[in-house]
């Protein structure tokens, strides 16, 4: 697999692991890369002999193969005192990064994949929610999402109506904001930083950033791993792995409002990586 030629993904920042996952030899967008960690703790990333820019933020190491016009996304919640950050390690999934984002945005799968945890057969309807393309920040948001959840989190005692917001601030970053049961008016964050190794293979880095005084870090970690590893076989069985973006074919796929907005946004950006070329039969 050779390096992608798609400028949309080349000129973006991508997480390649937690600091503690370094040093690491891996791939990014089809390109072999090596991340080294010096005696002083500094992380340097090389694509063959070429050194690439590095940022350490949100518990992860970020790099780019191109020249990003924008800085890494902002998540001010990471600076709020009292929150706990749990990073979940690298999980490989054999599908395109687009499918991983769309599955994350999809409320309808909760009762069937996360049965009696994030959803239940008896209350499987998805209420109408709002989707916004925020032009100023150029981000996709899904708002006013409500879903009945038998066990919404590690610390939840009994079922509750959960309120969600979803944010897609970059093509392969997605964050869930969930009403915090501990602090009034606050949101707990769960997010995925997706590192595309190639168009149909991804390393997924995930985190939990919450106000929670009762769960241990291991409890939070294992709840998150339980949920994500329930999704993994579903994702790997989706055919084709590449996602069709051209509007004429949207009828052919199951797409809810947020994933339709996501696809439209990617189409506007001209993204090709991880998509099914036009004219290729489904």
């Amino acid at each position, binding site marked *: 697999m050779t390096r992608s030629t798609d400028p949309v993904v080349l000129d973006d920042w991508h997480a390649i692991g*937690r600091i*503690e*996952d370094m040093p690491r030899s891996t791939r990014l967008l089809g390109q072999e890369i090596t991340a080294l960690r010096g005696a002083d703790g500094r992380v340097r990333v090389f694509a063959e002999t070429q050194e690439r820019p590095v940022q350490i933020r949100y518990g992860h190491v970020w790099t780019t193969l191109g020249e990003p016009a924008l800085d890494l996304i902002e998540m001010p919640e990471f600076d709020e005192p009292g929150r706990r950050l749990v*990073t*979940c*390690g*690298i*999980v*490989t999934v*054999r599908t395109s990064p687009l499918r991983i984002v769309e599955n994350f945005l999809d409320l309808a799968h909760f009762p069937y994949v996360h*049965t009696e945890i994030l959803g239940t057969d008896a209350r499987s309807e998805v209420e109408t929610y709002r989707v916004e393309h925020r032009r100023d920040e150029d981000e996709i948001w899904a708002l006013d999402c409500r879903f009945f959840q038998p066990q919404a989190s590690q610390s939840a005692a009994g079922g509750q109506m959960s309120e969600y917001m979803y944010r897609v601030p970059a093509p392969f970053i997605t964050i869930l904001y969930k009403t915090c049961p501990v602090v009034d008016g606050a949101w707990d964050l769960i997010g995925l930083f997706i590192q595309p190794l190639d168009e149909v293979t991804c*390393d997924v880095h995930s985190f939990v950033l919450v106000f929670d005084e009762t769960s*241990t*870090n*291991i*409890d939070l*970690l*294992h709840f998150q*791993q*339980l949920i*994500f*590893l*329930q999704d*993994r*076989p579903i994702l*790997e069985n989706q055919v084709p792995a590449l996602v069709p973006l051209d509007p004429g074919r949207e009828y052919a796929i199951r797409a809810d409002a947020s994933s339709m907005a996501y696809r439209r946004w990617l189409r506007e950006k001209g993204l090709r990586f991880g998509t099914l070329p036009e004219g290729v039969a489904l």
Partner: protein
Amino acid sequence: MIRLHDYVLSGSCYKVRLFMSLIGLDYAPVPIDYFPGREQRGAAFLAINPLGQLPVLDDDGFVLRDAQAILVYLAGKYDHTRTWYPEDPAAQGAIAMWLSFAGGEIMNASAARLHDMLNYDFDIDRVRRAAHDALRILDDHLTDQEIRGADWIVGGAHPSIADIACFPYVALAGDGGITIEDYGAIQRWIERVKQLPGFIDMPGIHPAS
């Protein structure tokens, strides 16, 4: 009080969780940060199990490692029906043979899963091939059993701990890129296990449809 040093994504821990659920035994899980924290390789856990492996059972101070050993112990002590590990020496010998297979050859499917899912360093072609060799042996055996009118790995009318020991990594084979489409008897056996009263699932294994 029974405590189980446990990891949510471990098929070996799931052998024990599943069996305790099937026989209605209560326990307290002690979650271990197997991945990414590698807590099982730290000094505190190595003092519990010098092999650095899960699961470990602690039954009021009696500490036992190895999923297969734990199944033998739990069946002997807590299965008052004596069906999961019958007292008949021939059945016990056959069960021991398949327990060894579960902790041995079938673990190639676990290695493939760790490689594909969590980036563990294995020779993926070799372990997948070895996993298929093991699955073929199990499928042939289950086919022979079906011809005899038997639903389970050992005996006929009732499952044994051999089924529970073999089940997880066979059912999770897809996680490691190993398809079980060609193993018809295995697929039917998986569905039978899922129908057992008290069956519980884990990530990667769906309950019966």
